């Protein structure tokens, strides 16, 4: 509580407060930084009533929480304990890692992009100290983000080094025998998928072996991104795959997250620059639950559903996606400071699908 020298709180309509000079001389001059933070609870009305001598204070107050407000605050107890083992999958690196493949030019002038994908069984850490017996593409969940441009030739050599039959089913327009739905690749076998990248947009790939639920839930999925020929405006680009893990195999997820590790982006906020365009490629691969969602704090985003159209679909701060559905989100922060993003299903958020954008002044980055 804000107090003057006599220990009396300064309140709107207070006699002392009305006599502006008195407050300025005896009381307000002794206000410390801590008092000001505490005064934040009083609200601007209380301060404004402090009179002319206090007029400079609200400005300082406004600057304080922007850069220095704690990233957690009331959320300090909601989190997993500890950190994942170093050396494994790094969700922070995954955000901005795009695999463009081995590039060459075909005789007809078409760009050829070749990729190598290997299905392997691997134990992954889905929350600090919690290990999950996953099936992976190239040892990671989600699999590598494959990026190409509309019209490119895509050739994916798939080796099944796992213990069960797997496939890669790419979303997109292609021949029936390249669909990864009927051509089961047995353990030890190899299959080459080849098709033209179309249409442009944000797509996905995943295993289509049965039982589907288990093959997808155990981690066989990833992002297949096709850029439009003319490209998109330059931006800081982030890949986010919403997923969950049923660690005790009871048909319900114990862990929810974006990019596998629960609470990772809460513990390691994603740094952004103020006034810089950010683009999020968001895909929902959550098994067992009907839908998943993303809510952005302190901002709104332009929504491009499936990314197949360059016209904005909606301007909103929350989006709901079914499994396999995806969207491109574009936004620019105009205020610095920590801003949360999380599933707007509270349960998912509290089981790990929660993160923080740490928006910094352009000069600070």
């Amino acid at each position, binding site marked *: 509580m804000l107090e003057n020298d006599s220990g009396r709180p300064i309140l709107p309509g207070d006699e002392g407060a009305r006599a502006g000079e008195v407050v300025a001389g005896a009381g307000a001059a002794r206000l410390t930084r801590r008092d000001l933070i505490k005064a934040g609870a009083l609200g601007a009305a209380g301060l404004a009533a402090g009179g002319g001598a206090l007029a400079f204070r609200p400005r300082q107050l406004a600057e304080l929480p922007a850069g220095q407000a704690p990233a957690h605050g009331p959320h300090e107890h*909601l*989190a997993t304990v500890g950190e994942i083992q170093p050396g494994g999958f790094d969700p922070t690196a995954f955000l901005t890692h795009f695999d463009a493949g081995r590039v060459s030019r075909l005789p007809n002038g078409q760009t050829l992009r070749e990729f190598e994908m290997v299905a392997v069984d691997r134990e992954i850490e889905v*929350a600090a100290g919690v290990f999950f017996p996953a099936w992976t593409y190239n040892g990671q969940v989600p699999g590598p983000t494959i990026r190409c441009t509309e019209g490119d030739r895509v050739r994916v050599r798939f080796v099944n080094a796992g213990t069960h039959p797997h496939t890669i089913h790419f979303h997109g327009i292609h021949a029936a025998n390249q669909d990864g739905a009927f051509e089961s690749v047995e353990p030890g076998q190899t299959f080459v998928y080849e098709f033209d990248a179309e249409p442009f947009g944000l797509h996905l790939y995943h295993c289509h072996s049965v039982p589907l639920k288990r093959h997808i839930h155990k981690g066989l999925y990833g992002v297949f991104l096709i850029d439009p020929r003319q490209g998109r405006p330059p931006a800081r680009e982030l890949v986010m795959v919403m997923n969950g893990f049923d*660690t005790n195999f009871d048909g319900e997820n114990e862990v929810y997250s974006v990019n596998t590790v629960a609470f990772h982006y809460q513990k390691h906020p994603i740094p952004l620059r103020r006034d810089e365009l950010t683009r999020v490629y968001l895909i929902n691969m959550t098994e067992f639950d009907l839908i998943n969602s993303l809510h952005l704090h302190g901002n709104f985003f332009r929504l491009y559903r499936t990314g197949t159209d360059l016209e904005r679909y909606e301007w909103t701060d929350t989006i709901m996606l079914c499994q396999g559905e995806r969207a491109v989100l574009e936004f620019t922060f105009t205020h610095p400071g920590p801003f949360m993003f999380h599933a707007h299903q509270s349960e998912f958020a509290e*089981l790990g699908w929660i993160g923080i954008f740490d928006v910094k002044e352009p000069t600070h980055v």
Partner: protein
Amino acid sequence: MSDSVRSAPATPPTSAPAAAPDTAKVTRSRGDAEEHLRGSASPRDPLAAPSEDRAAIPTWVKGLAPLALLAGLVVVFFRFGPIGVFRQAFPPVEELTIERITLPEPGLLEVRVVNGGPEPVTVAQVLVDEAAWQHTLDGDRTIGRLERRTIRLRYPWVEGEPHEVTLVSRTGLTFSGAIEVATRTPAANARYLTTFALLGVYAGVIPVFLGLLWFPFLRSIPRRWLDFFLSLTMGLLVFLGVDALAEALETSALVAGAFQGLALVLLGLLGTPLALAAVGEWRAVRRRARSALYVAGLIALGIGLHNLGEGLAIGTAYTSGEIALGTFLVVGFLLHNSTEGLGIVAPLAVERPRLRQLVLLGAVAGVPTVFGTWIGAFGYSPLWTTLFFAIGAGAIAQVVYELWRLFGRTATGGLAAPLNVAGLLMGLLLMYLTGLILPA
């Protein structure tokens, strides 16, 4: 003791497959035996040789040899046994049991957990009401077999509402415990100790002593009717015994696996009457007759153990927040237990016990309720509850048997006389009717 029980079922699969790698050892020992036989064949008196042999090996060696062999076999099994074939394919068997969740203060949860499984378990994360929550353990995150930990969480629990705590192990397995109705757990201070002692006095001590007041009445009625009341007592006890056994079996399901709830029930149920019978025999050997006072003492002891269990129920009902249930329990036990005093004095009607003895009998039967409420309120554990109930059931079984013997010696027409059968049925019915007041 529990070790020998556990190893018994493990032995048959152990011995058969382990025999293969052990062959070398077996043949060698047979060779030794042949050599030994050849050596002992030379003495003049062939019959004397074996007896000399028997004398040469001390008895304790003969007793321990099979044990040593068994130990060797277990080592061989662990090193070369067929289990290695399976070890890779199976995830580790993990088992954690949440024994108790307490709420010592607003915003604080304490979870007491025990590893009752065969292998160590690592607690990786803790969820409260399906939210990952920060917490601390009073030791290593990996809990060894039969080890305990207390987990503390700063969680804003809500008065009067249910909560659920889930432990997530390293392998992603989950172990849950529920708080039925959240309310602050009473601390073991003077105020609460007095309160719970009073609850016990109301539920157990007062009704038992009230029941003792039937003594003058019983002394003034004809022998025939006294037998009726004795058989009624038997009915009461049979009901209480079955009730205690049911409770023991119910709580045994909550005991951590390694502590074998069912085996505990068996130990209490059979061990208690056997021990009491042994005491009885010891008394008989010392020429102290099986007096009516002795039987009354046994009845008081059996009822006392049963009342200890009732106290546990009251204590836990209050601390788990089911206050309404606790109140009903006290009222119910008050009526229920007043018949127990009758049971104690019925066999005494033919004697002239001193007042001091009567008071002592009442105390033996009633006071355990107070200890029960304390244990239930401040240190509830499914393990001890199971054991107490099982001991109570066993003690009552022994008492019923003693009463039966008493009948055989003294009663008019034995237990099958119509009036006595009516008494027994009345006893059962009385317990059933007063039990109707009790919730669940």
